[in-house]
């Protein structure tokens, strides 16, 4: 079981420049397998840019992102188009501003996430048009997967409702359920707790921990809600101005002077409340 020690994702000397702005500056990072890793940092620190570089939405200026896929070996993510990152490398992300298919039902959202296996089973629609049994079996299996995640995330009552009609917290859960339907090896969550009430945040914590413990998933999350970050993370990486300023366990991060300075030393800092809240217990 050497891969327990081996990282699932290695970011090496990653740099992303937009014109004169350096959003990520020579960042190296290792995401351990079957653990929850949090990336935190003040607004504009480059967290979402890091996600975009990892998942093919941006092409990084310099550096590499390597995925150590359990079955497919080492894959270079920085050259792949975004859909291939999700499909081939099974690195699936969610978005800070929720991106559901609002007029489709919750169930359809989850079925769309299984597009690639279903499309292959439908023989590029020919077998599907004819209604061949192989396609019907694949569809039934996809439905089963979707219903399974919906039940686990307590969304099953909402399955046939248009996703856009549901409350914000529910939509966040749907987005996670949808990402899980892609069958990821690494799940990247961009602020999954944003806009959730304390009870919903606690449920999210439980879910994330069970995904790692029961489903062998590795999770990378960007989060501002310290009640989530400090409670569930095994490993935390702190970014500021595109650079890594600290890395370690929640305990180490909580007492790290440069982290405290990054959060509290800023003049127009909006995250002060969150960080003091997290430090209080």
């Amino acid at each position, binding site marked *: 079981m050497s891969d327990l020690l081996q990282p699932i994702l290695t970011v090496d000397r990653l740099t992303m420049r937009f014109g004169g702005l350096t959003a990520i500056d020579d960042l190296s990072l290792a995401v351990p397998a079957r653990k929850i890793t949090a990336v935190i940092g003040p607004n504009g620190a480059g967290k979402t840019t890091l996600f975009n570089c990892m998942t093919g*939405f941006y092409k990084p200026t310099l550096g590499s992102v390597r995925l150590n896929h359990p079955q497919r070996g080492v894959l270079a993510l920085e050259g792949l188009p*975004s859909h291939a990152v999700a499909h081939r490398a099974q690195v699936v*992300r969610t978005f800070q501003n929720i991106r*559901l298919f609002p007029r489709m039902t919750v*169930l359809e959202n989850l079925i769309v996430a299984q597009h690639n296996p279903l499309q292959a089973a439908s023989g590029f*629609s020919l077998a599907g*048009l004819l209604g061949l049994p192989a396609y019907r079996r694949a569809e039934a299996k996809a439905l089963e997967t979707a219903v399974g995640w919906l039940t686990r995330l307590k969304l099953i009552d909402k399955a046939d409702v248009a996703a856009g009609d549901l409350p914000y917290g529910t939509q966040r859960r749907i987005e996670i359920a949808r990402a899980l339907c892609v069958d990821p090896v690494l799940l990247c969550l961009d602020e999954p707790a944003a806009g959730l009430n304390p009870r919903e945040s606690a449920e999210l914590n439980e879910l994330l921990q069970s995904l790692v413990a029961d489903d062998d998933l590795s999770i990378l999350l960007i989060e501002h809600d310290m009640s989530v970050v400090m409670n569930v993370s095994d490993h935390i990486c702190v970014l500021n101005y595109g650079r890594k300023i600290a890395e370690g366990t929640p305990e180490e991060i909580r007492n790290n002077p440069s982290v405290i300075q990054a959060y509290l030393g800023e003049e127009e800092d909006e995250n002060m409340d969150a960080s003091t809240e997290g430090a209080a217990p």
Partner: protein
Amino acid sequence: MRAPVLVHDALTLAERCKDAASVALIGLLLGVPMVGLTTVDQGGALQVATRWPLLGAFVLAVFVGRLVLRYSIDRVSAGKRLRERAEGAATASSAGGAGWVRQLGIAALVLALLMPIVFSDNRYVVDTATTVLIYVMLGWGLNVVVGLAGLLDLGHVAFYAVGAYAYALLSTQFGWGFWAALPVAGGIAALAGLLVGWPSLRLRGDYLAIVTLGFGEIIRVVLVNWTDFSGGPNGIASIPRPSFFGLPFRPPGDTPSFAGFFGLEFSPMHRIVFLYYVILLLCLITNLLVTRLRKLPIGRAWEAVREDEIACRALGINVTGVKLSAFVFGAMLGGVAGVFFAARQGFISPESFTFNESAIILAIVVLGGMGSQLGVVLASLVLVLLPELGRDFSEFRMLLFGAAMILIMIWRPGGILSRREPTLRVARKEGGA
């Protein structure tokens, strides 16, 4: 309800008067040159005469009209809000709504099947119905592109033209029959769709609209100018009509014909009715295909791309491929409609494939309700029949047409049938397993 009005909702009398007065002021400004001043012929010379009393009456009419219009719009939207609240309480009735659409669809199909039998001696009615069905077919083709995949295509008529010219050339130059040429011409139109779509589908929204608009014009301009190939502005004449399994619709003579074979008295209506049933058959096949595809992974991916392209990419969907498949499929359907058009007319020229046609097809999709199959049928009926019914109004008929479109937009902003039916439900699985 966000109607394009100056002021909103429950208003006092003073506010209503103020609103009406501001509209009347606009009326006055427009009315001075249009109504207040006129030219009269005085001894061979033109002189300007004023008509202030008429202008006064005009402005007063605008004022009163605005008061009444505003009041009735408020009443309608207040009623609507009440109804929406009532519906919100009972969302479970959605399955009942689906049944209603289905019944309407079946009723429409029965009517369409019986129509030519009832009107078997009225050529005008059957001809008009055939035109409606051509637009239904075009609308369904474009509905895949615009309604499902959300790609704004302003040049759909180009594929219609490609299909029509493909059949015209295959039949007049190479002697191909209608049924043999149908799939080939559809394939050529699909190929044209692939050629346009491949480079342009990377563009989004407005940019794609401009490219497709340009492509539609390019095809038309090529057809006008490439005289050796397409006959230029003269078009292509004497395109063979489809025959009934090899039996042409001709007066009985030396060669076997439809009337002769079945021992019927020859009537030109036979061909008209036959053509009607051919396009009805093509429409039914199209409908079956589109309805099935919508429930397959590719159909759901089309809708997902319409809803959120970036989310699709994050879920591993190759967005370009999905868009391209919708575009090519829509182009193929447009091409098939074009084949039928050429075969029915017997003569085609670039005149038939102007931007105006693209605009009408797009209007059918948007008015019908994006993505709704039955909506396209209803909108085609409205858009083809209104100008026909309005013939008595001569020059005012386009005005009538415009007014009807505005009314539809006010009452049904999402299109005539804007309700979206889910492609699968959890309940169905539980019933089946």
